[in-house]
């Protein structure tokens, strides 16, 4: 780590945070990457598979960690939380707290918030009985189940029928949030497809209002699940679940047929809404960033990655987004930070005397850069 170079703080080690930290580090600046869990990777660590290419998310995480290893200018602090911060002149004085109780003060020049998402509390939907009835799971809990089926860890009787409910907490101003959580239609198709791969004789139902596959290779992915893996999509938001004889009775209307139906399932997976992770609002306050009425970091159309003065954000803490999008956003805010640091360095190197003063690797790079540009004009 070069003590004289500019330093960025990246909070959150998921796909967005990792991307940001790596790119800023590769540009030659210092980064402190703070992550509350013991391992990096964020929600990717909980996923068994990914859309639209059925790839193993662990491979992506491992790849990114390898890139990270090559960067001595990036310091990683796991099991660490940001406690408070103050602005001091042009910098931030940030207090972090480690899991052993010890605290540390870091001085940084810019902050990137990449704190990711959590799932909506599905117990609020009493009609689905999450938390009360057995075998009603959220989508993230179901990823764990997929892993258990794959590894053979779960050798209980395979389910005969699995039902997936979409929009649990999304598109619901009454009990949840009015917005659409964007990624659930895709990951539900993925999960339903995987059930059919593991248990070809099992019946899979996906209860939907719409299916949203607006992305590259997305529509083909969902059509493959429906047409080749024979998952049945029923248009109708489930009205009620009633446990009966160890199974779960689902009442809904097949709105395309206009008939109320009852489906008996062994397991129900709820695609719960994407909400900003709990720490996001507190961090927004600490760093003077704005959040919208749902708690997501607020964006400005002209500067979408900017949350405040020298504060940027990327990934699901800004709104629900898929892994690829989180990576893109991470790289985009890395560019913002790098541009900011370059600009500040240029301003600092205004006078010719200051040009080569100080063994500042970044400033040197920038000075050469500036010279080259001046020459190029």
């Amino acid at each position, binding site marked *: 780590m070069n003590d004289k170079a500019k330093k960025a703080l990246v909070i959150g080690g998921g796909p967005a945070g990792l991307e940001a930290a790596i790119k800023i580090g590769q540009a030659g600046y210092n980064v402190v990457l703070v992550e509350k869990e013991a391992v990096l990777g964020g929600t990717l660590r909980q996923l068994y598979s990914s859309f639209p290419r059925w790839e193993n998310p662990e491979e992506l995480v491992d790849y990114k960690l390898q890139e990270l290893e090559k960067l001595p200018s990036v310091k990683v602090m796991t099991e660490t939380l940001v406690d408070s911060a103050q602005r001091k002149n042009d910098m931030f004085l940030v207090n972090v707290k480690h899991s052993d109780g010890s605290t540390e003060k870091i001085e940084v020049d810019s902050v990137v918030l990449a704190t990711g998402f959590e799932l909506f509390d599905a117990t*609020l939907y*009493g009609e689905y*009985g999450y938390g009360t009835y057995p075998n009603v799971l959220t989508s993230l809990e179901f990823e764990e189940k997929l892993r258990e089926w794959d590894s053979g860890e779960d050798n209980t009787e395979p389910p005969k029928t699995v039902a997936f409910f979409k929009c649990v907490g999304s598109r619901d101003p009454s009990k949840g*949030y009015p917005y659409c959580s964007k990624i659930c239609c895709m990951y539900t198709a993925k999960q339903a497809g995987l059930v059919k791969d593991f248990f070809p004789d099992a019946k899979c139902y996906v209860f939907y209002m719409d299916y949203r596959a607006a992305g590259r290779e997305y529509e083909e992915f969902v059509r493959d699940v429906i047409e080749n893996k024979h998952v049945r999509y029923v248009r109708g938001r489930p009205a009620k679940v009633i446990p009966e004889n160890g199974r779960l009775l689902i009442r809904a209307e097949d709105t395309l047929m206009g008939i109320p139906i009852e489906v008996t399932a062994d397991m129900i997976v709820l695609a719960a809404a994407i909400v900003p992770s709990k720490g996001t609002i507190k961090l927004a306050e600490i760093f003077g960033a704005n959040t919208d009425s*749902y708690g997501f970091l607020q964006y400005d159309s002209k500067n979408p990655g900017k949350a405040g003065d020298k504060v940027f954000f990327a990934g699901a803490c800004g709104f629900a987004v898929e892994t690829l999008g989180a990576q893109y956003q991470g790289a985009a805010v890395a560019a913002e930070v790098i541009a900011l640091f370059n600009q500040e360095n240029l301003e600092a190197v205004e006078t010719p005397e200051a040009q080569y003063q100080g063994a500042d690797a970044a400033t040197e790079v920038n000075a050469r850069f500036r010279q080259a540009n001046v020459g190029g004009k």
Partner: protein
Amino acid sequence: MSVARRVITPQEQIAEVPEKIFLFRSCTGSMEYPGTENAIKEVLKILGVEIVSDPDQSCCAGYILTCSGFTPEPALAVTARNLGMVEQRYGLDTYVFCNGCYAYIRELAHVLHTHPDYMKQANDLISQWGYKYEEKTKILHVQELYYLLLDKIKEKVVRPLTGLRVAAHYGCHYLAQQYNILDEGDLPTFHEEIYEALGATPVFYKHRRMCCGYAVGRGFTHKESVVQPQLSKKFDSAKEDGVELMTTTCPGCNVALDREQPNLNKRGFGPYDIPVIDLGQLIALALGVPLWKLGFNANTTPMDGILTKLGLEKGEIGDE
């Protein structure tokens, strides 16, 4: 932004235990099941809550309004009149003991609150008799008071209903209000908690949340095609799970569940023989209120079997 507040605790609903409440007379309650009204009065007396009523209170005019029997204007004015009267004369909160009254008064009051022109219209009309509605009185149901005073009820149980398999019929209209109510509309459990406090055994039968059919179903003559098949499904599942007694918090539901059973039996459903009483009457039984005050002779499906099981013959518990 957190999601809209729906379920609240009884302490949030009723800030402090009231010394006095205004009890809103229910038409069906006072005519079909006067024992219910009596039981509630006795139970609240034991729990230290005084009841105030007023003969100037009229019907809430909700039932037939929902049957499209007349237009909403009189119902809105009647609601404003009744609530305004409680505010002006007593300054107390308005407690109903009927889910129907609860829904009608609460929904009509909501229409008044959110439409200032209707509020003005109603207030102008009732002002000629000196009434004015200022949205000060809170609209509550006695079941909320029971739940708030659950610990006290437990203390005062003199006749634990041990071994009695009781099932709840919450009814539709209290939980359908959705916001600022005591429990979730699809998975409520607070009645069962009350049963446990009384020493009884709660039974969660499959169709416990099914409607009794008697809202507009009591008004229109679709009993055979709409209401009865529904009720038979409900009673089938209760019978299967060994329910011995059902409680309601609505005299309207009580009429449906209690008085339709012989009709169902005649039509070849069932046969069913599950007595249905008000939750207040159940609490009164456990709290030792004299039996003759509870008016079980109003019940079409007789309570005799239950009383025998509890070791009570007609006239026992405190022959006054």
